[in-house]
């Protein structure tokens, strides 16, 4: 694996499978009374968050702490960022403090990429603008593999997602989750279809390794996985679609639509959800929904990434 994780495109199939397998090993920890490993003792992980994202930050924090790393949370609010310090100066400061890894969430596409050119430690992209969010894609892949390849147990080691049909629905144009998932899921062998109004798809989407549909209803009966994307508040009223009501009617997942899915199919959402907009409450809370599971899997997947980027290849602590 590379030193950084900035784009899902950085991962080969072997890399991705190794991360998922490692996450399976680490998931075993969650069932133990003591959930902590000494692997990253003495290493420092900085969570550098320029955007409010409590769930992603807490997930990375929990992952690093379970591996015994020292965690420094650096949030844009109340820091020197508010005084106008540049990303580069912040990077050099973190460097001077000896950060072994920097987990960055930033509103600008490419921020993680830029950061990696200024620090020596590993850079983990926790979401950059409308570019990518690779650990979200990894935790989604992990969730899909567990549900549809391993009966919810760690039995699917070594497997990819070959032949699984994943439909990603919604604002693909502005979604870092969609970009990372298209890249990673196709690397793992899944057949990805994007379903969205044309206004919310990039013009050049034809060059992506996926299919495109404007008709969600036509895609549902052949989907093993439906992944709903959040409709951002700022898109509403910006002429991407006439009204929230119409969006919901055409691309929202309600109980009637869910009924068109094959029996084994699962419903995913990266959160936070707009209940009643892209997903109905009874769908979000149904047995098909993996939304809460995704959160739990986020911690183990991020542990695996930190472990592989910082720790090394062996982990005898969980080998038995």
């Amino acid at each position, binding site marked *: 694996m590379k030193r950084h994780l900035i784009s899902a495109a950085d991962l080969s199939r072997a890399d991705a499978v190794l991360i998922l397998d490692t996450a399976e090993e680490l998931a075993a920890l969650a069932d133990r009374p003591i959930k902590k490993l000494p692997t990253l003792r003495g290493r420092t992980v900085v969570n550098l968050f320029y955007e409010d994202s409590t769930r992603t930050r807490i997930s990375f924090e929990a992952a690093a702490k379970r591996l015994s790393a020292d965690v420094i949370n650096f949030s844009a609010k109340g820091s020197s960022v508010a005084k106008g310090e*540049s990303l580069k100066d912040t990077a050099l400061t973190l460097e001077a403090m000896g950060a072994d890894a920097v987990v960055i969430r930033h509103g600008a596409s490419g921020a993680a990429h*830029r950061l990696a050119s200024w620090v020596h430690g590993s850079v983990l992209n926790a979401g950059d603008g409308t570019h990518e969010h690779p650990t979200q894609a990894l935790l989604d892949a992990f969730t899909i593999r567990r549900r549809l390849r391993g009966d919810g147990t760690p039995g699917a080691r070594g497997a990819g997602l070959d032949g699984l049909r994943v439909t990603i629905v919604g604002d693909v144009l502005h979604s870092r989750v969609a970009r990372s998932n298209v890249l990673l899921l196709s690397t793992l062998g899944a057949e990805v279809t994007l379903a969205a109004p044309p206004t919310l798809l990039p013009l*050049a989407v034809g060059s992506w390794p996926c299919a495109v549909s404007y008709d969600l209803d036509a895609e549902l009966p052949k989907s093993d996985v439906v992944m709903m994307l959040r409709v951002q508040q700022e898109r509403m009223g910006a002429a991407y679609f006439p009204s929230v009501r119409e969006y919901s009617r055409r691309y929202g997942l309600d109980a009637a639509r869910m009924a068109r899915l094959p029996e084994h199919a699962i419903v995913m959402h990266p959160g936070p959800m707009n209940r009643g907009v892209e997903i109905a409450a009874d769908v979000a809370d149904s047995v098909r929904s993996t939304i809460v599971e995704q959160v739990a899997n986020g911690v183990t997947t991020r542990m695996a990434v930190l472990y592989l980027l910082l720790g090394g290849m062996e982990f005898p602590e969980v080998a038995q």
Partner: protein
Amino acid sequence: MTAAGPARGGAAKPRWLIRGATIAGSGDGFRVADIAISGESVAAVESGLDHAGATVLDADGLVALPGLVDLHTHLREPGREDAETVETGTAAAALGGYTAVHAMANTDPVADTAGVVEQVWRLGQMAGHCDVQPVGAVTVGLAGTRLAELGTMADSAARVRVFSDDGRCVADPLLMRRALEYVKAFDGVIAQHAQDPRLTEGAQLNEGEMSARLGLAGWPAVAEEAIIARDCLLAAHVGSALHVCHVSTAGSAEIIRWAKAKGWQVTAEVTPHHLLLTDELAAGYDPVFKVNPPLRTDADVTELRRALADGTIDCVATDHAPHPVEAKETEWSEAAFGMTGLETALRVVQHAMVDTGLLDWAGVADRMSVQPARIGRLRGQGVPLTAGAPANITLYDPAAPAEPVIASGASKSRNSPFAGMHLPGRVVATFLRGTPTVLDGKLALSR
């Protein structure tokens, strides 16, 4: 003469003999000859001239071009002297082979009054590295709502003829019509920065595969092309002169070709970077490649080269846009738009146009000197090298081995997208009205 050159004050005027240069004139192909300079003028262009007492400059293998003229330069003074000053910007221009530059109006304060354009004009005279012709703003404060005092700027000592809100588009069609009409009274031209503001809100990179992959807001070609089409129709309607700044798409070239075929007074420029670089360079998110209009695709580059070669695009203009380091060492979306270009323009044009067989040196003289001087209504510039012409001369060595471009030159700023690229050629000397501003590739004026 548009400006008093440094030669004017001296009692003993220098005499130079440039020996054995390849003369690239407009329309007359080229020939090898000596150039004798007497005072501020070319005394003779003949073979075997023997001027005893003259300083001889051996120009064997060098191309002699009429001094280059840039229609589009940001000198940043007044207001952003941390990025560039008239002194440093014109020094960079001279090193790039330029004898005249047009200073864009988006300074602080904006060059929208006679006072500011006269100040810039005087700073240029004081610097002496090349002529500085100020461009006046079309609208007050570049705000796009009220016309600036165009006539007063035209009547000022700066003799403004080119007006532009460059950096912003005159988007209001009525205001654009009035501006085009109004400047007819004093043979002016409106140089439009063609960018529909609504279609480019928050735009960061050419809309295409790269913008989709990188998650950068797309900058559609149509945002440029729609304004150019509209402006061509407006210019035709009122019978005025339109100049299109920094054409960046194949579609724009096609519209301009159509407008010219109609016989309308439309001219256009292309930058060196749009002749060579593409949006693929944004892959690493290095904002040194962030520019307005954005870098486009290979197909656009190919068409822009063809349009420059066939004269659809009249000239090369640098859009030299210096920025301090901190404006570029940042996230892409936070970074300033713009690239430096004065010191590399001729080398890029050789690489993109001459070495590819698209343009000969006479063509380069036309597109980089004659045409920009004509469009800018500049007196005493862009005159082919014949006896009696002003001695504005660029001596260029096209056979100099391709060396990597060094970002730090005379410009105060280092945001060159060509830094590290191997480009051929070297500007050896520049003469401004008979006085060398550059000799042996170095600034000749001591200060």
